[in-house]
């Protein structure tokens, strides 16, 4: 392994069900967490539905994997960007999403919000600052 740390971003653009992209993307994020890179995750377009609260998949015979997002903080994934316009276009607000947090060991395990609500332009700047983009 190279010693350098790269800025890795995982971009989620698809609805959680209907295709397998969201679930298999989450598998990549969880595996990637072991590699000690500077990781962030972004949700845009229909991808914002992946974080929606109260998902119930009982009618479609699919595993509800949405609780896994709440574990991202335990994997030291603390930067989760959600695109504001994507929420607005779908009639959603932050209150419709899971409240994702992480614990800051440098501040006596203080609980902090993981989700950063950013505009499309701001997200563009964040993307431009990354070394590796995984696009799902």
């Amino acid at each position: 392994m190279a010693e350098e740390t790269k800025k890795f971003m995982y971009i989620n653009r698809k609805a959680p069900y209907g295709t397998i992209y969201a679930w298999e993307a989450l598998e990549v994020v969880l595996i990637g967490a072991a590699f000690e890179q500077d990781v962030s995750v972004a949700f845009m377009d229909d991808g914002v539905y992946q974080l929606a609260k109260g998902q119930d998949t009982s009618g479609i015979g699919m595993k509800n994997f949405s609780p896994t997002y709440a574990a991202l903080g335990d994997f030291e994934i603390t930067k989760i960007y959600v695109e504001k316009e994507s929420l607005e276009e779908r009639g959603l607000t932050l209150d419709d999403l899971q409240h994702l947090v992480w614990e800051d060991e440098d501040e006596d395990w203080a609980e902090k919000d993981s989700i950063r609500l950013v505009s499309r332009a701001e997200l563009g700047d964040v993307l431009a600052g990354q070394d590796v983009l995984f696009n799902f």
Partner: protein
Amino acid sequence: MKLTIQVNEGPYQHQSADSAYYFAKAALEKGHEIYRIFFYHDGVNNGTRLTTPPQDDRNIVARWSELAEQHDLDMVLCVAAAQRRGIVDDGEAERNGKDATNIAPGFRISGLGQLIEGGVQSDRLVVFGD
């Protein structure tokens, strides 16, 4: 430049499988190094040797195998994605009690860590898919 290529879509269903191949071929012709080609989602279907396209169509799987042989490429199918979609090598057949294998020459099955490592080790990660 050192490249890792990620292929997320299946052959014939989606042009990504073709675009990734032409990109890889052109990159090699221009003297770039391909560190790894990683197949994910339905992209793992690029690696079944049982593919039998009509005779007047391109053989996407054989084309990958030939490119790998010519350039000694590391072509990896994600194990979790491959298991879901029934792409099997000797090791997987034994582990999971399957009665056949179908992996094409030049491909191997390994974990998602190989994709992440490709991102770490390469100058660019190039993703083909929707």
